[in-house]
């Protein structure tokens, strides 16, 4: 691999870091300025809306199975349902994830056995 790889890696790494760092520093400074002027330090309204919607979009992307089939969709629906039920019951982070993954896994294994048999 030629020097191009190292230069491209450097540009992409620094560029990605800047996209994560600079807007954060800018907003922190903006909030401090608002506070020092005696105003209410708050981020713009559209950002408070966009944040949860970005998570919703990530959920939508990750819900689509890598290899869509009747069984993977069924596993996804049941896995999501059991994660939701576990959340309603425990209101925690870890147990619902465990419940979701376990249900998803059981359906996939059963599907393999059914197809195999």
């Amino acid at each position, binding site marked *: *691999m030629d020097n*191009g*790889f190292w*230069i*491209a*890696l450097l*540009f*992409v790494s620094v*560029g*990605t*870091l800047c*996209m*994560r*760092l*600079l*807007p*954060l*520093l*800018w*907003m*922190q400074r*903006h*909030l401090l300025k608002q506070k020092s002027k005696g105003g209410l330090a708050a*981020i713009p309204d*559209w*950002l*408070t*809306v*966009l*944040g*949860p*919607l*970005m*998570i*919703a*979009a*990530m*959920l*939508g*992307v*990750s*819900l*689509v199975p*890598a290899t869509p089939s009747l069984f993977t969709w069924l*596993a*996804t629906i049941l*896995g*999501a349902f059991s*994660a*939701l039920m576990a*959340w309603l019951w425990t209101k925690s*982070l*870890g147990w*619902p*994830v465990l*419940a*979701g*993954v376990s249900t998803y*896994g059981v359906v996939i294994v059963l599907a*393999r056995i059914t197809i195999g048999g």
Partner: protein
Amino acid sequence: MSWRTGAREATPLLGGYIPVAISFGMVAVQAGFSVWQTILISTLIYAGASQFLFVAMVAAGAPWGLVVVMTLLINARHVVYGPSLAPWLPKSRWWPFLSHGLTDQIFALALSRLPQLPTEQRLGWYSGAMLLAWFSWVAGTAAGAIAGEELSRHWPLLGEVMPFALPALFLVLLAPRFTSRSWSIALSCTIGMAMVLTLYGFTNASIPLAAASGALFFYLTKVHARAGGRLDG
């Protein structure tokens, strides 16, 4: 110790990170990158989708300039993460390093958890969560680059099942946000739109596009509710 809490609460992420990192390690080595180059890509870029694109474009012989532009374009969604978290993240000289770990998943977790934590614990919590996720990504890449084929031969199901940890986690993070009609409509539309775009192969564009359309629905329902209120009143 707040960093321990952060690391513990980020543990569910590993189910999604490690299998994807292993497959990235495998793909990169098969595309002609050395083990060390593969590990360096994961350590320095640390952004899943763009890393796969980076490797695929290089393997296809794309010009380096185009590789850089396309990879950065995919990562452009990260610009809204920092400002969204800014009210809950204290100032620190460590941010140039810590912000490197502000991935999609850490953002989702931090946006839900940071507002619930006392101010003095937030930086520690974020550091613990971010470091665990980063190390798992790099370790998973190394495992995939060195012994990926053997791992997928021994545990073929694990790689298929464990990534479901990510949608399960996102679901749990989102569930408490279905608090009003506007939010329920906006969130449901965003999830649906992201699924449709992904199914049609627009995976990389689906996050910003679906979120933008969800925001549009959110404001439309607000406007509609206000107009309805005026008409009724």
